[in-house]
């Protein structure tokens, strides 16, 4: 196996929320994690284990109270959310979060094409991009291509999540964060989007972190598995270990959460 290239490193990261208030709580504790090029990491953990906080820390919404974050060797611990969007993209659980409701599908995609770039007084040229956008939408299926001129508030939850995923990947991110992006969908739609996700992440060799509550999905997809508990990584399994693991064993690591 070729030597791995680190895309993002968390170095002894601790995050405390509601600091200096009675509700003060340590979410991530001394968490160290290296994410390598091509990693497709599934992340499991009980509620409160720090999964979402991990994503918020990586994307810059939360600044660590201690520790460092490095992107390709460069320290980005205090870099703003906007700056980080030039290399990080994210899909949220709530279909309403990832798309602008009153803007059309085409307008949404066009906005996403310029993720993290300076937006100046250049005309966006929607009409000139239409054909290209239609092609891209066609590849995603879910009849998105027929809805290019529809405001996204009129789309189904599944279509919106498909669109959100498309928007997160249309400009290749160094790191793709999927925060239970299929959890709000019905089982059939959820499976379809999950399969599509896996296919696109694998063929485009994207580096991806995916939080999931489905143990089956955590085992079935990806090439690395993390178990989070009380703000620490308690298990970090590579592809080989992950393939050997069965559902009961994973549940076992998971269940002695309450300490």
């Amino acid at each position, binding site marked *: 196996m070729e030597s791995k290239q680190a895309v993002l490193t968390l170095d002894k990261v601790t995050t405390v929320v509601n600091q200096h208030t009675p509700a003060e709580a340590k979410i991530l504790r001394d968490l160290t994690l290296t994410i390598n090029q091509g990693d497709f990491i599934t992340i499991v953990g009980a509620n409160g284990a720090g999964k979402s906080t991990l994503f918020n820390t990586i*994307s810059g919404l939360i600044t660590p109270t201690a520790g460092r974050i490095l992107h390709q060797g460069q320290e980005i611990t205090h870099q703003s*959310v*906007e*700056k980080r*969007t*030039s290399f990080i*993209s*994210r899909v*949220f659980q709530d279909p*309403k*979060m*990832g*798309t*602008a*409701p*009153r*803007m059309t599908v085409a*307008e949404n995609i*066009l*906005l*996403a094409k*310029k*993720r*993290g*770039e300076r*937006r*100046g*007084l*250049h*005309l*966006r040229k*929607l009409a000139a991009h239409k054909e290209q956008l239609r092609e891209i939408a066609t590849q995603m299926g879910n009849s998105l291509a027929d809805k290019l001129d529809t405001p996204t508030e009129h789309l189904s939850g599944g279509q919106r999540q498909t669109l959100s995923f498309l*928007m997160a990947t249309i400009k290749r991110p160094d790191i793709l964060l999927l925060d239970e992006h299929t959890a709000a969908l019905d089982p059939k739609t959820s499976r379809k989007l999950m399969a599509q996700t896996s296919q696109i992440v694998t063929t485009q060799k994207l580096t991806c972190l995916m939080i999931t509550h489905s143990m089956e999905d955590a085992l079935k997809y990806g090439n690395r598995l993390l178990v989070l508990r009380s703000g620490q990584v308690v298990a970090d399994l590579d592809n080989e270990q992950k393939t050997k693991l069965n559902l009961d064993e994973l549940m076992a690591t998971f269940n002695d959460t309450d300490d």
Partner: protein
Amino acid sequence: MNLITSSIGQGLLWALLGLALFLTFRILNFADMTVEGTFPLGAAITVTAITKGVSPLIATLLGFLGGAAGGLITGLLYTKGNIPILLAGILVMTGCLSVNLRIMGGSNVSLLGQKTFFSAKIFQTLPRYFDSVLIGGGTIILITILIALFLETDLGQAFIVTGDNQMMAQSLGVNTDNMTILGLTLSNGLVGLAGALIAQNNGYADANMGIGIIVIALASIIIGEVVFGYLTLNQRLIAVILGSIIYRFVLLIVLQLGFSTNDLNLISAIILAICLMLPKLRHALKLDGILRKGVSQHGK
């Protein structure tokens, strides 16, 4: 005829206010109270400047800049100071009241005998009120085109998405604070411009001329939406202008019915309240059903 021309002229001049508020009320999705302060601010600056011998064009631009400065302060208080937008607007509006009195050196300044946009020679040859139609129409065409172009740019799109879905805007790298500040600055600049033109049209600036204008601006937006229904963004800008003119006709009718100009604020508020409740009223009174029935029967 004179009354109708006058209403169209007033509608066009006041439409600027509607367009300005559209940027915040419909795109950024909040009601910006600053306008009640920046409108008389624009008027005060422009009128005072004209009486000091500044050319009407420069004076009007100063009115725009004054309004923009007010909006900038509201934007900073809201985004950087974490003051709720309604309160931030009220604070700047209240502050403007004192500033306006300072600028004018009193509660009103007259433009009697001064050169304004409306005193230009060509207007003397035209019938009455055509000056406001031409100046209002010209300004509104220019501003509408500029707004429409701006909204088509990458920056304009970032501005729109900020109001539509702030979380998503941020995740696409849009600095939503800056976009909010930009929107408030632009919007209040246009409000200042409206104040500047309307004061020149009236022939004076008055410290109290801002009272109730947010209702007038909202009325033109809402009337446009109620009358014209589902539209694209550019069409909605036109709907605001037409809404403003319709609103002036409604006022004309109300005055013809014998109400006094003192009643106008109450009447404006009632008109706006009814328009805002219309979706709910339609549902409750089943107006939609009745209308549809009526239409389908005609179809037979």
